[in-house]
């Protein structure tokens, strides 16, 4: 019972699968191509149809000759010949047709017309000649009709409607003649003819279905083969790409290994537990160990013992986070016991399961660099404190003497103490400039911006520098005041810029000259300009006027004093305050130095 259920189930599933296969074949086969194939098949059969008609027509004409009106027989023969020629022309046209695929429905239509014409020409013979013939010739003609109808089955098997038209063209007039002949036997034959006709049409229909599925199968197979070939080609291409990719990976692996091997920095490959798997040549040189002494051992060998706990902590973090770390400064003992400080970049390599499989550590010896940084800091600190403290005493003592509070001194002694004080001050200015530029360039200078009325600032700068101007017999004059204009700036630093520009202008002005200071609106900025009547800026000097340690010529330094850092400091200060600074030579001699700062409303 169970068994039979299973069996019937299996057979049903087989049925279903056969239907599915047929449906798939129908889907895959292009119906246009199937039609074109059927049309091609039909045209291939045409010579048979033409030949059969021509030969049978010739025999019939020969037999009917003399038994009928001569002209009528020849007329019919002419029709048969015309049909044969027309069909041949159609066949020729079809064979020459360049596009048999898209025009297949048209060719089918023409063929249907030709088949109907062919059938009808035999039908005409039946209608015209049958009645008047003797018995044996009637049998001959009936036999001929039946034969011609039967020949149509294989000839038009690929399209049963065409066969139906063709056979109807032969048999319908014949059938009519038989029915109306007035002979009982003929009536019975006439009744049998449609039955045979229907049987033949059914056979033709079946054959058409066979052709259809045959051609469908052929095209489905063709398509399948094509798909298969495309798939094959794609696979082949992918295989090639894969192979190429593998080669590239291999090549880049070799390149990488070469990079690591030849790199000037130490490269270590470590296992997740800290065991060294590989080291490059630079690492051997840096730490003084041969590769064999390091490989297989723990990397802690390269870390000072007192830092092991810290090292372990960092290592754990690295393994846990699986993220690259950079800038790790670690004290690494060399083989000879001398400590190096190295900066490390460590990169964990992770597999697709997110497990760390190796760690690449790249180290650079920064001992000398750190030492240089430390020395620079110390130097700066020495400059600022150790040099300024004695200068305080020197300048202070001289100021006390020169101010006269210590009582009168001899005139020539007084002149010398003034010289000493001025040069002490120069030395101090130089130190201050050096400290300033160092501070600015290391980004350590912090500004204290406040809203400043520009006119007030210019006035304050003039007052502050008046004494300096008097030394060079130069007068500062403010021109074109702009009341109520404000900028956001560090007051002390902006005064420093003004002092620089004013003292430069004074130094390079002719004796008894006037330095003019103007303020003006410049778009969204406010511009302060200092104009002198000196010699102007030499062409060769223009490009580097805001550089460090620059002066037009070295004799000027000796004559006028100054570090050559003043304008470099000014430029950086103004830029820190979001402004810009520049200069131009004046028509009629002299130079103009200017700076611009963004205007702010005094809220």
């Amino acid at each position, binding site marked *: 019972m169970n068994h039979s259920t299973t069996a019937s189930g299996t057979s049903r599933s087989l049925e279903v699968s056969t239907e599915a296969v047929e449906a798939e074949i129908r889907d895959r086969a292009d119906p246009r191509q199937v039609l074109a194939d059927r049309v091609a098949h039909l045209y291939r059969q045409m010579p048979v149809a033409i030949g059969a008609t021509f030969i049978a027509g010739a025999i019939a004409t020969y037999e009917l000759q003399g038994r009928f009106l001569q002209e009528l027989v020849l007329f019919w023969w002419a029709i048969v010949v015309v049909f044969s020629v027309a069909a041949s022309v159609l066949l020729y046209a079809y064979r020459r047709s360049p596009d048999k695929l898209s025009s297949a429905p048209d060719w089918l239509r023409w063929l249907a017309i030709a088949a109907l014409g062919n059938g009808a020409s035999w039908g005409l013979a039946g209608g015209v000649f049958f009645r008047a013939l003797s018995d044996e010739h009637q049998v001959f003609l009936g036999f001929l009709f039946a034969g011609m109808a039967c020949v149509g089955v294989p000839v038009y098997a690929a399209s049963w409607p065409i066969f139906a038209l063709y056979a109807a063209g032969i048999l319908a007039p014949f059938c009519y003649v038989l029915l109306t002949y007035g002979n009982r036997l003929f009536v019975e034959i006439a009744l049998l003819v449609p039955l045979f006709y229907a049987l033949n049409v059914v056979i033709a229909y079946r054959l058409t279905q066979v052709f259809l599925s045959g051609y469908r199968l052929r095209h489905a197979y063709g398509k399948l083969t094509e798909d298969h070939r495309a798939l094959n080609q794609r696979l082949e291409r992918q295989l090639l790409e894969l192979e190429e990719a593998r080669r590239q990976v291999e090549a880049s692996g070799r390149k990488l290994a070469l990079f690591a091997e030849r790199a000037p920095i130490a490269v270590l490959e470590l296992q997740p537990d800290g065991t060294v798997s590989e080291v490059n040549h630079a690492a051997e040189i840096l730490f003084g160990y041969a590769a064999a002494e390091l490989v297989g051992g723990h990397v802690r060998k390269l870390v000072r013992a007192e830092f092991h706990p810290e090292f372990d902590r960092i290592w754990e973090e690295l393994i846990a986070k699986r993220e690259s770390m950079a800038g790790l400064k670690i004290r690494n003992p060399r083989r000879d016991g001398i400590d190096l400080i190295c900066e490390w970049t460590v990169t964990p390599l992770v597999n697709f399961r997110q497990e760390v499989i190796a760690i690449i550590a790249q180290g650079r010896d920064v001992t000398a660099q750190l030492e240089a940084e430390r020395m620079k800091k110390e130097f700066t*600190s020495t400059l*600022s*404190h150790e040099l*300024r*403290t*004695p*200068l*305080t*005493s020197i*300048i*202070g*003592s001289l*100021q*006390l003497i020169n*101010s006269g*509070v*210590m009582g009168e001194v001899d005139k020539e002694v007084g002149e010398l103490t003034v010289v000493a004080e001025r040069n002490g001050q120069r030395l*101090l200015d130089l130190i201050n400039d050096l400290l300033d530029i160092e501070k600015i360039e290391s980004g350590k200078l*912090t500004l*204290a911006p406040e809203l400043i009325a520009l006119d007030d600032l210019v006035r304050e700068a003039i007052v502050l520098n008046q004494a300096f101007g008097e030394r060079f017999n130069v007068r500062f004059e403010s021109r074109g005041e702009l009341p109520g204009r404000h900028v956001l700036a560090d007051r002390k630093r902006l005064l420093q810029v003004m002092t620089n520009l004013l003292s430069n202008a004074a130094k390079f002005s002719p004796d008894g000259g006037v330095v003019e200071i103007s303020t003006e609106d410049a778009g969204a900025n406010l511009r302060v300009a200092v104009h002198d009547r000196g010699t102007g800026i030499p062409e060769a000097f223009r490009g580097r006027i805001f550089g460090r340690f620059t002066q037009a010529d070295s004799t000027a330094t000796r004559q006028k004093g100054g570090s050559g850092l003043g304008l470099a400091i000014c430029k950086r200060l103004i830029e820190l305050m979001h402004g810009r600074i520049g200069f131009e030579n004046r028509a009629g001699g002299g130079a103009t130095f200017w700076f611009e700062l963004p205007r702010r409303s005094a809220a």
Partner: protein
Amino acid sequence: MPDRPLTRICYVEDDEDIQRIVRMSLERVGKMTVEVVTDPTQALQTFAEFRPDLVMLDWMMPVLDGPALFRQMKLRPETSALPVVFITARASQRDLDELKSLGAAGTISKPFSPRDLPEQLRAIWAKLP
């Protein structure tokens, strides 16, 4: 502003040259009475004896530097209200801000001008409550 003029200054400084200049500046130019302390550990005792109007502290000194001494002063009731001015060559803006917030009356940077020093101190004195 305090109701009396600034006359008595105590200056804690380890550098004897600068001591001398500051003393001369304040005495000659400023007409003030000056007491100088070389050893900062003795400073608190000197303050108690001399009773200055204002104390000037050098920033960098061995054993006990200016800021440390200042913090000690703040802990003692007899010195906590004394106005303190720092003299310094290298303090960063952050250090100065911190001292201001602790209650320093002012700072004077090295090198200072002995001609102007009395004026600078009087200006700080005038701003005191």
